[in-house]
């Protein structure tokens, strides 16, 4: 009996240098790779949005003083891809995830926020987001839920 899923890879692994240009290239590699493992265009769009924010955070905060590699795992799952991001940089402040509240809305143009959007985007598009500091490594994991279309 043939199982059509047997010949298709069930996940992706990437190792990315912790800088903005390498992140760009990794995202391009990732979107191609996710298409190859059967993810829909809508899922790939969400994955790219989330991963851009997650990886930029690692580059800007975990690896701000010393460079390092970022390890990315994607694993297929019936409820959507499970993703894990590992780095050897500085721990998350308080060893905890930011809540991701949007900055309060402003009417005055000069007070409009230029930042503070990233964690809100991550939380809006993921489920089961968790962070752990273990053996001098940061470990962020989340699920990208199945998107219709």
């Amino acid at each position, binding site marked *: 009996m043939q199982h059509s899923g047997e010949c298709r890879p069930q996940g992706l692994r990437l190792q990315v240098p912790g800088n903005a240009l390498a992140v760009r290239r990794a995202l391009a590699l990732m979107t191609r790779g996710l298409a190859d493992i059967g993810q829909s265009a809508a899922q790939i769009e969400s994955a790219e949005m989330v991963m851009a924010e997650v990886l930029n955070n690692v580059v800007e905060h975990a690896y701000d003083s010393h460079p390092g590699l970022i390890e990315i795992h994607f694993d297929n799952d019936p409820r959507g891809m499970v993703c894990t991001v590992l780095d050897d940089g500085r721990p998350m402040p308080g060893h905890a995830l930011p809540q991701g509240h949007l900055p309060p809305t402003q009417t005055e143009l000069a007070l*409009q926020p230029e930042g503070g959007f990233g964690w809100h985007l991550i939380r809006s598009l993921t489920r089961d987001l968790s962070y752990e500091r273990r053996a001098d490594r940061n470990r962020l994991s989340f699920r990208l839920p199945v998107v219709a279309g």
Partner: protein
Amino acid sequence: MQLSTETISDALVVTVEEPRIDAAVAIQFKEAMREAAAAGPARVVLDLSRVTFLDSSGLGAVVAVMKHLAPARLELAGLTPAVARVFRLTRMDSVFTIHPAPTDAA
């Protein structure tokens, strides 16, 4: 950061000629916009129809440009679906005047 410009009636239409406004180019984008609008137009329409990806750094850069141009107005045009989604999820779509197409704006 490649930009092209065109004056149409009272507006300077600035077209971003690259597919991504992200962490890698946010600073260059802000600088390029500063240069492009240096003559002080009353109104700038930012044509994003070639931009298929914008992250929170890119969004922050667009907000910074808006603040820098004031009191001149910055309006956006031609948002592709993924870019429109970022503005919507962050509720920044209520902060900007957003035209469906660049030709609607000028």
